[in-house]
Structures are given as C-alpha cells and as structure tokens.
C-alpha cells in the first residue's frame, strides 16, 4: 500500500505524531546540550561525565546504593512534580502562573519557620506551607479575577516581594544560633516503611506517592468534573475575565489558589523530607521553577505528562550532580534553554492544531 504526500502530511500534523515526536525531539535536544555542556566543562572526560548523567542511580556500585540513589531522585521528583503541576493547572485555564517562585519560597519559609522556630509537628508544617502558598496564589487570582491584572505580571512582582520576605525572615531565624548558608530540617516526614524499599534512604517518604496522587487528582478534576470544565472553558474564552462575570473571576481565583497550594506543598515535600535545603545565598526557588516550567511545558500541561517529565529532568539533574559538582549549574542552564524551546513546542502543537482546523487533517 502506497502513501501519498497528503497522507504523510496528515500523519505529521496528526495529534498522535505530535505527542510522540515533540517529546522525542526535546529528549534529543537535552542530550545534545548535555553532551556539549560536558565537552565544554570537562573536555577530556566529557563522554564519561555524560554517561554518569544519563545513568544517575544506575551508576551506583551496589544494588543497595542504586536503590538509595533512586530513592533520592524520586524524593526530589515529588517536589518538582508538585511545582510543575502548579504551573500546568493554571495553564489549562489559560493563565500563566509565573508567581510560582514566590509561592514556593513562602511555602518553604512557612515550613522552615514552623519546623525550626516553633518546633511544630510535620503535619502542621506541611499545612502551613500549603496555606501560605495558597494565599500568595489567591492574591494573584483575586487580582486577575477582580481587576483583570495580568497574572503573569502580578505573579512576577509578587515573587520579588515573597523572596525578600522569605530571606528576611529566614535570616533572622538563622541569627539565633545557626550558620549562614543552607538551612535544613533534615528528614522530618515519616517514611512509613517506604525507606526500606530504597536501601534505607530516609528521604523516601509518602510525599512521593502523594505527588503522583496530586497529578491524578488534577487530571480527574480537569477531565471529569464541572469545575474542570469551567477551568478549560476559561482557557477557550480569553476575554471572559474582562466581563463582570463572577464565574470567570472565581475560576481564576480558585485555580491560582490551588496552584499556590501545590507550590507550597512542593516546598514542604522538598524541605521536610530532607531531600534538599534552603540556601540563603542562592535562591533555590528560581532553579526549581526553571526545572518545573520545563517539566510542565514538555509534558504539554498534561498532569501525567508533567509527572513523567519531572522524573526525567530530575533524573538528569541528579545524574549531573553525581558526575560533577558543576552538574547542577549545567542542568539549570539546559532547562532554561528548554523553556525557550518549550515556547516553540507550544507553537508546534498549536501550529498542528491550526492546520488541522484548516483541513490539513480530516476528522
């Protein structure tokens, strides 16, 4: 059976091909950029470093070490996935939650203050982080819903305020006796026996299945509920928030509040599981958001796609850190480039859709 030019075009612009080809193109881009980066950083040992980056936990010497490294990657993936969902969810409503850095920073601040200053139980710390992130998201949502202030612009400005507030509070917290640098609570969350599956790694906590459940919950809400339909309808009619329609305003408010809570939970998952610390000299929120934005964009704003890409990106980040001390900087740079390319991925997807609408692909 012979296929003509029109059939090939139909296939290339079809949704199935786009879903397959676009992620593969990005994976190829990541690998190429990674190889180029290592060739620049370690000219003599680029291949070896690149291989370690790809292998990550597989490069462990013993099965126990491999399981432990996998556990660490999964623990960090949980946090990254929650942050990426905080970007993906509003995007489905046609909004760009660029304030996620501020929501993450305030969530981290709340978790650390509750844990280190007030010595509160972990559950309260998690709730405080989610609540503060949600409040910060709700402010952007209220501005969008109530006054039609661009959520992108208000989010970016709120980031600046949140980062200053967070730094100010945490610095005062450290002056009590800690040392300036990385602030960490250590593993606070209960492992519920999950650590036994990963070589006794204490950072493996229920935050990992909770992140997967959050992705499933976002999917169910978006695809199976009336609220999800409202969220997607807001994306279809960009003009809706311009009218005094309480429904559209409420949708913006609720979506950004939920996104803020997810970002706050991401911060709590990262810090309270002991998977990472908070550096006052270097803003960890910015690096996290860069990777989260890349995961959300590459996952096509789909909750499960986001979860999958969060794991892939975290796997490569951890692999790069294992390969060399400069690895995290390299992966951050790659993810920044990927966000740029992600804009083009969006273009590719939309170009395909437009072509389909014009008749390039028959139903």
């Amino acid at each position, binding site marked *: 059976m012979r296929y003509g030019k029109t059939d090939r075009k139909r296939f290339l612009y079809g949704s199935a091909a786009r879903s397959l080809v676009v992620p593969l193109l990005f994976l190829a881009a990541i690998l190429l950029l990674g190889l180029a980066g290592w060739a620049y950083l370690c000219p003599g040992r680029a291949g070896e470093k690149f291989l370690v980056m790809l292998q990550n936990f597989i490069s462990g010497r013993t099965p126990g070490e491999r399981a432990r490294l996998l556990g660490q990657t999964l623990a960090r993936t949980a946090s990254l996935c929650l942050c990426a969902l905080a970007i993906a969810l509003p995007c489905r409503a046609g909004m*760009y939650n660029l304030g996620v850095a501020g929501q993450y920073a305030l969530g981290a601040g709340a978790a650390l203050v509750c844990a280190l200053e007030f010595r509160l139980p972990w559950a309260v710390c998690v709730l405080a982080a989610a609540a503060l992130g949600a409040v910060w998201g709700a402010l952007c949502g209220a*501005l969008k819903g109530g006054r039609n*202030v661009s959520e992108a612009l208000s989010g*970016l400005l*709120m980031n*600046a*305020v949140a980062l*200053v507030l967070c730094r100010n509070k945490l610095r005062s917290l450290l002056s009590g006796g800690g040392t300036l640098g990385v602030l960490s609570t250590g593993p606070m969350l209960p492992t519920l026996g999950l650590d036994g599956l990963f070589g006794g790694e204490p950072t493996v906590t229920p935050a990992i299945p909770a992140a997967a459940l959050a992705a499933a919950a976002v999917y169910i809400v978006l695809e199976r509920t009336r609220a999800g339909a409202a969220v997607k309808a807001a994306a279809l009619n960009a003009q809706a928030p311009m009218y005094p329609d309480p429904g559209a305003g409420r949708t913006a408010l609720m979506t950004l509040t939920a996104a803020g809570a997810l970002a706050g939970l991401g911060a709590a998952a990262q810090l309270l599981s002991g998977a990472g610390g908070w550096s006052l000299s270097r803003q960890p929120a910015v690096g996290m958001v860069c990777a989260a934005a890349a995961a959300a964009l590459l996952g096509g704003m789909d909750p499960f796609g986001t979860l999958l890409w969060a794991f892939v990106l975290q796997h490569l980040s951890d692999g790069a850190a294992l390969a060399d001390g400069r690895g995290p900087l390299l992966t951050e740079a790659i993810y*920044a480039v990927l966000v740029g390319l992600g*804009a083009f991925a969006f273009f590719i997807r939309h170009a395909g859709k437009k072509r389909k609408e014009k008749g390039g692909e028959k139903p």
Partner: protein
Amino acid sequence: MTDFLNTLGIMLYATLIYTAPLLYAALGSCFSEVSGVVNIGIEGMMTAGAFAGTVVAYFTGNPWVGFLCGGLAGAFFGMLHAIATVRLGADQTIAGTAINMLGPGIVIMIGMVVFGSTDSAPLNAAQKIPKLFTGVFDTATAFGRFMDNVFATYASTYLVFLVALLVWFIFYKTRFGLRLRACGEHPQACETLGINVIRMRFLCVCISGFLSGLGGACVTMAISTQFRPISIVGQGFIAIAAVIFGKFRPQGALIGCLLFGFCSGLKVVLGGSSGVNMQLLSMIPYVVTVIVLVLFVGKSHVPSANGKPYIKSK
C-alpha cells in the same frame, strides 16, 4: 533648612538615577506593546544589556562603547523574542518568560568564563558613564549643595529624557509612529494599506530590546560599578507596570517611571538614617507597582491587537 535641602537634594538625585533605567526599559516596552507584541522579556533583555555593557566598558575602557554594546545585547535578545513571537507566532508570554530565563543564564555562564565568577570585575571611574555638571555649582552654600546633589548626575540620566522626547516625537509626529500604532490597533487594515505588519512588529521588538539593554547598562555602569546576578531584579517588570500606568504612551510611562524611581530612591534616603530594615524598604517599589496595577490596569487603553499573533492573509 539646610538639612531639609540636603535631604530633598539626595531624594531627587536618587529618584533621577533610579528612574533612568526604568524609563529606558519602559520606552522600549512602549515600542513593543504599542505595535501589538507583549514583551514580558524586558527583564532578561536588561540583564543581557547590563552584563554586555559592563564587560565591554571594562575591556575597552570606553563607557560609551560599553553602553552601546549593552543596547545591542538587548537588541539581540529582542530579536530572539521577535523571531519566536512575530515570525513563528509562539505564545508571547511564554517566549518572554523564556527570554527572562535565558538572559541571566547565558550571561552568568559567560561571566564564569570571562571572570571566573558570576560577578564582573568592578569598573573604575573612567570606565563608568561620566557625571555631568560636577563642580559647576558652588557647594559652599546650602542652595549650591542642593543643586549639586540634584544635577551633578550621570550623562545617561540626561540622555534618557532626550530619548523620551524623541520617542514621543516618533510616536505622534512621524509616519512611522502612525504605522506603528496602527499595527497594534488593526493589523489587517494596515496590511490592506501596504504596510508590512510583520516587519514593523519585528523592528519594534528589536528596538524594545535595544532600549531595555541600554536600561540594563545604565544600572551597572552608572548606579553601581559592576555586574552581579542580582543587579537586575524586577526593574523590567516595574517598567512594564509603568507603561500600563502610563496608558501605553511614552509621556505616561515617564510619569510612571518617576513614581517608581521615587519609591526606589526612598531606600537611599530612609535606609541610611531611619534604621528601617533595608530588605523591607527594597520591597516598596514592588508593592507600589502591584497597587498601581490594581488601580490603573482597567483604565488603560490596551492596543486592540496587543498580544495577538498576526498571521498574514493570503
């Protein structure tokens, strides 16, 4: 009275020097937004300009060459934004966010190669943008000191007000300006009149990048003496807010930038003596910006085709 004049002089001086970079970027933003392209990547373009300006001034010893190169670096990132949004029709907010991430990422990487650190080497007095009117006023008297405080400022500060005047002239008194505004209001009508909308928008986004780059260079070559990753923190977003405040007009953006420059200058005056926390003072411009957005965003006339990719009709 003398103290009052001194404080007022310092306040005005701080307002002027903090207004200059905001105004460069806001004027750039006017070009882009009025032509119909949302440019949220101003911050990234400013960062590129700040770095390029400092590096070139450091190695050539000529501040004006550095200043110009700062603008060109911004224009390069503007061109990237234009390719993504105008030529390829990519989402303008995402492309702008990508520029905001790419700008700092690339300059930090280059900084590591050139200086072995994320901070650039500091500029000496000859490498910085020169101050005008130093020694012109008699500082023996209180009024002379006041005049010296206010007017003995960097040349880039005076230049930006001339640029604002030029941009106003271009927008409202030239054929190019009329076409530019028409592209942002009704691109299809422009096309029927033979105006190349794609080319106009592309050029405007590049000009936007150039002016933003000059704004960034102004920060590192006048206000401070070196580039640091935290040199440009939020100024680009404040500039966008100033444009919204100014109803997308250069003269309105000038007033907005003076307001935000005043808020930024407050930390110079209050931070030194009043014992108020500097970190909290540095939040004032952002908080004021959010308040201004809340108050003015609905009243602003947004160009009708702003943010909508233009697809040329066959």
